[in-house]
């Protein structure tokens, strides 16, 4: 039996996540790993929106913020457990994306970019200014997920870094599996068709507005879950998670790694999360190096890092 590309991607991801800790010189690397996975979850959602459906969003950090603040506020005010708060945040994000998505997904190109940008900025402003609820710009504490205590009761002692590495890794694999399945499903094919051309897709009988909305809602849920995990891991959340720069970061990760490929986008998330840690020694030049990497990738590998490298590799092998 030949493995489908989908399964190969998942297998590669799984092996990388499981094997990586063997090479970790200190516990700090678990933290970086967990951050990479959490960013990669949001980026996987953006692959569905940007890569599959061809729609841009510069406001997805807003949904990250909703997910994060749900985990901070719902357990305190509604008395529900943090696990349900993740679901609540996802539901809120999906609801908001569904309501807002209907009018703004009628827009194209720059106009859609600006509309989503506005949405993200609005959410982050609400989070920063409604201090009586959100604690304002200094942020708010997030209740403990309680998983570490539970594991300790069962006789397993794990550090916070290790726990979140495996937890975020598991969620990422699940998220990537769903996204890869979507790619070959009728919905995925419809999304890719409308990516190519709205008009062509419509003449094929595809309900274009509905499919765009689906992609938008799904990617909002991914972003929300990523925010929830970030908040629960850090035990503290500030409006920065919903900020414009975070949105731009997420889109950059998606585009850098390879916008149409789940594995490529995760690769992009890895590079942009890990590189600043590597570059602390040359801190003054950090932004210059990041900018340079992006310019070079865009010029020489317009499909993104991973797809371009694979194409080159296959081309050589075929000769």
């Amino acid at each position, binding site marked *: 039996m030949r493995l489908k590309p989908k399964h190969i991607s998942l297998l590669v991801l799984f092996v990388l996540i499981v094997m990586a800790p063997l090479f970790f*010189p*200190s*516990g*700090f*690397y678990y*933290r*970086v790993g967990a*951050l990479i996975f959490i960013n990669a979850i949001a980026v996987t959602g953006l692959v569905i929106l940007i890569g599959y459906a061809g729609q841009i969003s510069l406001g997805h950090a807003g949904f990250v913020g909703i997910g994060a603040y749900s985990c901070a506020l719902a357990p305190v005010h509604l008395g529900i457990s943090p696990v349900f708060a993740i679901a609540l945040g996802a539901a809120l994000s999906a609801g908001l994306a569904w309501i807002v998505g209907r009018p703004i997904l009628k827009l194209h190109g720059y106009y859609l970019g600006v509309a989503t940008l506005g949405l993200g900025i609005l959410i982050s402003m609400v989070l*920063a*200014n409604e*201090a009586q609820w959100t604690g*304002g*710009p*200094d*942020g708010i*504490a997030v209740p403990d997920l309680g998983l570490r205590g539970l594991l300790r009761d069962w006789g397993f002692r794990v550090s*916070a*870094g290790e726990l979140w590495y495996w937890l975020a890794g598991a969620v990422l694999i699940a998220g990537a599996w769903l996204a890869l399945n979507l790619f070959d499903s009728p919905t995925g094919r419809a999304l890719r068709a409308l990516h190519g051309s709205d008009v062509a897709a419509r003449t094929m009988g595809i309900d274009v507005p509905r499919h765009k909305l689906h992609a938008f809602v799904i990617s909002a849920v991914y972003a929300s879950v990523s925010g929830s995990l*970030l908040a629960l891991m*850090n*035990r*503290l959340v*500030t409006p*920065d*998670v919903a900020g414009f720069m975070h949105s731009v970061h997420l889109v950059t990760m998606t585009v850098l790694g390879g916008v149409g490929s789940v594995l490529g986008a995760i690769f992009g998330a890895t590079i942009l999360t890990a590189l600043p*840690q590597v570059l*602390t020694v040359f*801190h003054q030049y950090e932004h210059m190096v990041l900018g340079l990497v992006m310019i070079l990738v865009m010029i020489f590998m317009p499909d993104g890092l991973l797809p371009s490298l694979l194409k080159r590799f296959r081309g050589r092998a075929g000769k």
Partner: protein
Amino acid sequence: MKTKTILAATLAMFGLAAMDANAQIRIGASLAETGPAGALGDPEAKTLRLMVEQINQDGGILGEQIQLVLYDDGGDPNNARTFATRLVEHDGVVAIIGGTTTGTSMAILAVAEEEEIPFISVAGGIEIIDPVRPFTFKTPHTDHMACQKIFEDMQERGISRVGMISGTDGFGASMRNQCLGVAGDFGIEIVADERYAPGDADMVPQLTNIRNTAGLEAVLNPGFGSGPAIVTRNYRQLGIELPFYQSHGVAGQSYIDLSGAENAEGVRVPGTALLVADRLADDDPQRDVVIAYRDAYVGRFNEPVSTFGGYAHDAMAILVDAIIRNGDPNPDPRDLRDAIEATSGLVGTTGTYTFSDSDHLGLDLSAFRLLEIRDGIWVEVEQP
């Protein structure tokens, strides 16, 4: 041959790294050198580098050199937490100084408490040390105390109806809350409460609202950065003659320069001895410390000192003092924590620190000096 060379080089590197870790006292720092709080974090980082340079030139402490591992978290709590983890787990530091903003300090203290590493914060928020956490200390006054100091002075001048205009950034929002909370204790009523965003270029509408409030007696502006300077200019443009108070967030020469000396004339601020270094009385206990720091900083970086650099100075001074008293060049973090908590009568630029198991700030209201701007310079207001 090549493999051998690489092997040898790698071994040498590991050897160096190991030596590095043993022969030096490693102190970690995560500050917002860049980003929205860069105006605060930059002098803090410069101060730490300067002090470590000085200490090492003078032969280090306990015969060991100090190595400063400093990261720029850009004021983002998520980054601050990552760097705190890195400092503890990867760099193996004995203590952490940092957290320019209250948000980043809260992120670092979570790591410090979990990993049991002493942490001295340089941010203002009262929630950092209240409730008291075993491994977390801080050097700046709280904004709670700044409000008290201002209201105390207002009470003495017979002011009871105050208009407040605050920034919506972390500093302004937190101080606004604290001031609203303590105003009642001093018989003061906040009759107008206006806000502005950090990037705003004009605060005339908010100030007009405040001016039109009936029975107004004074105006207070909690905020830092360029906002307070714009408020000050607008205040004079509108011809408001009432007493005007700024927060400790403006305590630096740049505020006077930005707002113009004639506009800032008569503005009162709760500040530290650092700003009036030359005009301190000869018998003032802080005089020597303040002048030494001021001269060293100005001499090295050729820019005026700010209160924020002073906070970092005090944090490093407390830490160095504790390491020396503890007497072990490779201190156990728990022993070092005990030594910091035992700090008593240490004179810093901000005030005189005495920690206890119930007080991890170690300053009282007397450390704040009420300053007024006269002819473009800071002058201490004589307390009756």
